[in-house]
């Protein structure tokens, strides 16, 4: 399985994956999260499980079940951990624990290493049988609501270690804390190489003229992604350079706020024929892949962001990305080297003009951007890091481990 990544991922990651696989061969590695489809965690697990099997580990993936009330509570929990002011009362905490208790009865939690993803299944630690237990936090815990975080920490502290995506998302919880960024899979439909015909088919379907530069942002219609700011930047650019703006995202049928933001974006775009708002159905991975390859400049002008893996996806297509300096984006964009970090609409417009007017610079940055992703943000490095963390916990107390 991992031989499929040879020639794509750095050789060191593949060598170390094999070495760690030899050390951990035949051991069981259980992942638990709260959904099998949708969202970044599920997407990564779908791709990672076969790699783990490929190096001799016996991985399993369990999903906790809950009713509407449970997921309302965990959504509040998620929001408060990211700093929103919402109340979680004692009854809610009891129900949150109770649903986890019922799941613990149903699930086989016996494994050599257990990775619990995000807050929803965190109380499962109370039903630990054996093995190493690690809590994997995918969200930003840098400025949480104090009470809620303290309550959650009572569970997190019982784990052997926790894992955060970015150092600034971490929080001192009294356990060993690893920093492991998420990743993209270069072989996934969203990132695989496309033929010229496949790309042309997408260009034709969306009516994108060949001779005109394309500015692209791929994101949900969410205020934190600042789609209106992107239109403002496009209008500032348009005074100097002809271009087409493509805003591609999923329709917001189940998200009332998403629908409101989409309408705001449509109103703001008014009747400009050069602003193309593309509503892509879920799983439009080939279309997104092709749009990123067609784009001249890709923006991710977020004002608030988790890790922002769409940036790495765009960089993998050899594009210099203009990204908001927030969340995990500064880890991916080395300003002036693999793209530009911006703090304002003016910044986004200025940097877009720079890239449009300096195609050689844009191409060099794009090449460096792809290499930077190759070195740091592919799923092989991510899997290697999980196994390394597990092995480090088994060898606790050592600063240097020689395999």
């Amino acid at each position: 399985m991992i031989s499929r990544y040879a020639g794509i991922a750095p050789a060191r990651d593949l060598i170390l994956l094999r070495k760690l696989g030899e050390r951990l061969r035949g051991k069981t590695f259980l992942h638990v999260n709260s959904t099998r489809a949708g969202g970044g965690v599920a997407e990564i697990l779908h791709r990672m499980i076969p790699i783990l099997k490929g190096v001799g580990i016996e991985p399993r993936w369990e999903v906790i079940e809950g009713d509407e009330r449970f997921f309302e509570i965990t959504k509040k929990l998620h929001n408060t951990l990211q700093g929103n002011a919402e109340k979680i009362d004692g009854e809610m905490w009891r129900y949150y624990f109770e649903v986890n208790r019922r799941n613990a009865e149903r699930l086989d939690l016996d494994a050599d290493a257990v990775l619990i993803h995000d807050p929803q299944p965190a109380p499962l630690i109370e039903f630990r049988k054996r093995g190493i237990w690690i809590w994997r936090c995918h969200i930003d815990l840098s400025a949480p609501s104090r009470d809620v975080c303290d309550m959650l920490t009572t569970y997190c502290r019982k784990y052997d270690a926790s894992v955060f995506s970015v150092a600034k998302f971490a929080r001192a919880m009294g356990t060993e804390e690893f920093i492991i960024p998420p990743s993209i899979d270069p072989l996934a439909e969203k990132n695989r190489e496309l033929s010229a015909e496949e790309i042309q088919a997408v260009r034709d379907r969306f009516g994108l003229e060949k001779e005109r530069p394309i500015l692209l942002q791929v994101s949900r219609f969410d205020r934190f992604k600042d789609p209106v700011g992107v239109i403002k930047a496009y209008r500032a650019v348009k005074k100097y350079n002809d271009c087409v703006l493509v805003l591609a995202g999923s329709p917001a049928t189940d998200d009332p706020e998403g629908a409101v933001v989409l309408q705001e974006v449509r109103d703001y775009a008014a009747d400009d024929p050069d602003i193309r708002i593309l509503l892509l159905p879920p799983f439009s991975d080939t279309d997104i892949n092709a749009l990123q390859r067609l784009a001249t400049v890709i923006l991710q002008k977020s004002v608030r962001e988790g890790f922002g893996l769409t940036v790495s996806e765009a960089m993998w297509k050899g594009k210099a990305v203009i990204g908001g300096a927030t969340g995990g984006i500064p880890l991916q964009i080395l300003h002036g080297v693999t793209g530009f970090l911006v703090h304002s609409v003016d910044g986004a417009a200025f940097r877009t003009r720079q890239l449009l007017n300096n195609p050689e610079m844009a191409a060099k940055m794009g090449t460096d951007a792809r290499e930077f992703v190759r070195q740091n943000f592919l799923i092989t490095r991510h899997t290697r890091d999980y196994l390394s963390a597990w092995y480090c916990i088994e060898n606790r107390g050592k600063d240097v481990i020689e395999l």
Partner: protein
Amino acid sequence: MEKISEPFEFKECIGILKATGKKARNLKELRDIVAVVSAGSIFHHTYQYFMRERFLEYTNDFAQWAGEGLEERALAEELSNIDPYEFRDTEEVRKRLLDIIGGYLERFPDPRDAMAGDEFYFNETVTIIYPAGIRAENLAEFLIAIRFMDVNAVYYHFYDARVRLGTDDFSTWFERVIGKPALAEAVRAIDPFMHDLEWIRRYIAGAVEAEVRRDMEMTGGGG
């Protein structure tokens, strides 16, 4: 080419990053935490700065943050001149950091705060070392290997070796095993603070290739 008795065994290493949970918003906090943080964290932010494939403007994380996060350029320059390999151990590096930051704070006692999100996060690493699965038994084999080896091997043998042995592994092997003191000297002459790993790899490959060519000419075609 003749085989020699002690082959060069290429090894690579990676650092698994860990958060210490400590962060500094300004120079006073930086000084206070540098004074107490683990030796592993000082090691990570100074010695292991060279593990990344692309260096930024300065030569350690403290200097980089002083220059870019706080815009205290004079301090960044002073911190950037710290050569961690000059010191006996990490505690001496810590002391030098404290002297420089303390001296700067005496001259400029009201440091500004970094922007929210741009604080200095103290991390540390567990280093995992593993064989790359390639060994060179003569200079020609070494040349092929160094060209295709991951740059992490260059870090392990060129930088990490200085902590272990006080010098790099390459020049030691060239001099002691291969008997090429001039080649060893060419590698020792590399300024470790001015080049990234890829440059060092290319430079060593170039120097070794020139040596292999000379050997072949001397022996009339490598026979």
